Each structure stands twice: as structure tokens, then as C-alpha cells.
């Protein structure tokens, strides 16, 4: 075995060269890779899901529509609720489930890693782990405790296993003491884990 052809160029330069060759040969449109990167890194992400939650907290009519038919809301208002063109993003069949004093919802995909990417961004590594996928449906209370979510014994847990075409978004409970906050300030409080049900939203310090 020889080592005469070891690559010396840094990965970024090699990828750029490869991309240029693909563009020269017509396999890629100029800018196509940048656009995909923009979709995954900026246009999709948990800030979108957080906007949905914040709107649901301040607008009872929106909350009712979201819990009744989240897919229709996505189609009408875009993933960012600001008219983003859904045609450019993967279509999402969405179900929203709300946490209450009595019920806590947790989302998992036991078969693979189904996840509402446009509203949450790429999924975290733990979501795809065998441990989470197997334990979330079997002992969710223990799993939640490990995430720091300690539920009272009277809180009923519903686990949603994304086995088919529907994706799930958890609408967490609004923290106490946030009555004076506007929609954008509220959205800033909502983290990714809370949108999966693996976390709760804490009041601002």
C-alpha cells in the first residue's frame, strides 16, 4: 500500500472544488448547495416552533386552530408564521399537542427518527439514540426526570410515537410571571427540548 496520493487540501477547499466541478458539468445549479445549507441552518429551526408556541400563548383563537388542525395552520401561515414559502421547504403533516396541569406530552420516533424538521431544525443526537427511542415509550417518567423534568405523580404522560406521516409539536405550558411579555420575548424563552416535550419552559430570570 502506498501513501503517494494522500489528500493535502483542507476539506473545505476539496468540497468547494467538487461543487465547482458538479456545477461545470451541469449536475448542480450555481448556488444550489448554498440554498440547501440556508434552508437547514437558517430557515428551518426551533425558532419557528417557538413562534408557534408564543402565538398560541397570546392568541386563544390561534391556539384553538393549532390544536384542531396544525397542518392547516402550516399551509396558511408558513413555518415561520411570517409567510415563508412552504413550497421551497419539505411539506409537513403536523399535529400539535398541548401540555396542561394534568397532561404532559413527549414525542419520540421508535422506528427511526421522524421529527418536524422545519419547526425544530435537525434533530439532536439523543433523539436518534437507541436508548431514548426504546425508553421513552416504556418509562417516560424516568426519562423525563433525567432531562430535569420532574412531573407530579398526578400528571398524566402521553407519549406520541411518530410511526407514520404525522409529525408532532408540543405546546409547552406558559411559565408564570410572563404576563407582561410580548410574542417575540415569549418565543425567545422557548427551547427546542420543550417543543419535543423533553423540557419545560422556565420563567425569565
Amino acid at each position, binding site marked *: 500500500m502506498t501513501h503517494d496520493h494522500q489528500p493535502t487540501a483542507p476539506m473545505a477547499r476539496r468540497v468547494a472544488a467538487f461543487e465547482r466541478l458538479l456545477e461545470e458539468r451541469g449536475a448542480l445549479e450555481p448556488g444550489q448547495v448554498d440554498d440547501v445549507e440556508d434552508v437547514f441552518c437558517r430557515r428551518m429551526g426551533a425558532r419557528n416552533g417557538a413562534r408557534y408556541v408564543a402565538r398560541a400563548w397570546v392568541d386563544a383563537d390561534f391556539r384553538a386552530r393549532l390544536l384542531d388542525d396544525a397542518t392547516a395552520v402550516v399551509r396558511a401561515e408558513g413555518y415561520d408564521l411570517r409567510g415563508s414559502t412552504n413550497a421551497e421547504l419539505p411539506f409537513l*403533516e403536523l*399535529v400539535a399537542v398541548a401540555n396542561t396541569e394534568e397532561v404532559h406530552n413527549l414525542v419520540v420516533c*421508535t*422506528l427511526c427518527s421522524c421529527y418536524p424538521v422545519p419547526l425544530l431544525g435537525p434533530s439532536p443526537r439523543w433523539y436518534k439514540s437507541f436508548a431514548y427511542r426504546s425508553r421513552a*415509550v*416504556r*418509562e*417516560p*417518567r424516568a426519562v423525563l426526570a433525567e432531562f430535569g423534568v420532574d412531573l407530579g405523580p398526578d400528571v*398524566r*404522560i*402521553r*407519549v*406520541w*410515537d*411518530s*410511526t*407514520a*406521516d*404525522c409529525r408532532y409539536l408540543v405546546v409547552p405550558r406558559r411559565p408564570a410571571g410572563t404576563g407582561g411579555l410580548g410574542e417575540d420575548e415569549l418565543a425567545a424563552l422557548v427551547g427546542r427540548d420543550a417543543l419535543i416535550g423533553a423540557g419545560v419552559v422556565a420563567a425569565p430570570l
Partner: protein
Amino acid sequence: MNFSPGQAVRARLHGAPGHTRLPGYVRGRPGIVHALRGDFPFPDEGARYGRAEPQALYSVRFAARDLWGSGDHDVYLDLFESYLNEVSA
């Protein structure tokens, strides 16, 4: 066969040979239909033939006790009509 919310069902013991979206842990277990999700391409067929007819998809609630023998939570799965059997009252 069509199922309605509130109806008792049992997940089938055996899926189609090959690809299926019927998880092993619910096979043979009793559940209650929670909601109709709509019609979606049936993945077992899609994997085999490259195309699939739409089929009714249901959200079905299973009690942890019926899945694992213990536990006080509920697990909801989206299951295609072909995965479900009617349970006579």
C-alpha cells in the same frame, strides 16, 4: 373496514413480510382509536412496489399496562388500517 374514535382495536400480530411501520412492541396489543389522521400512501406497499395506494391512518392510544405490564402513561401511535383488527365488544 373503517374505525371510529373510541373504538376498541387490536394491533395485528404479523405485519407484511419486508418493510412495515408496525412497531413490534404494539403487535397483538389492545388499544383505542383516538383520531383519524386521513389517507396516506401505505408504506409497506410502497417499499415493495415503488408506489402505494392511500390508506386510512389512525392515531391509536395504548395503555402502558397493556404494552409493558406496568406503567401509568399512554402511548399513541399512528397506525394504518391494515395494521388493526376490530375487537368485538
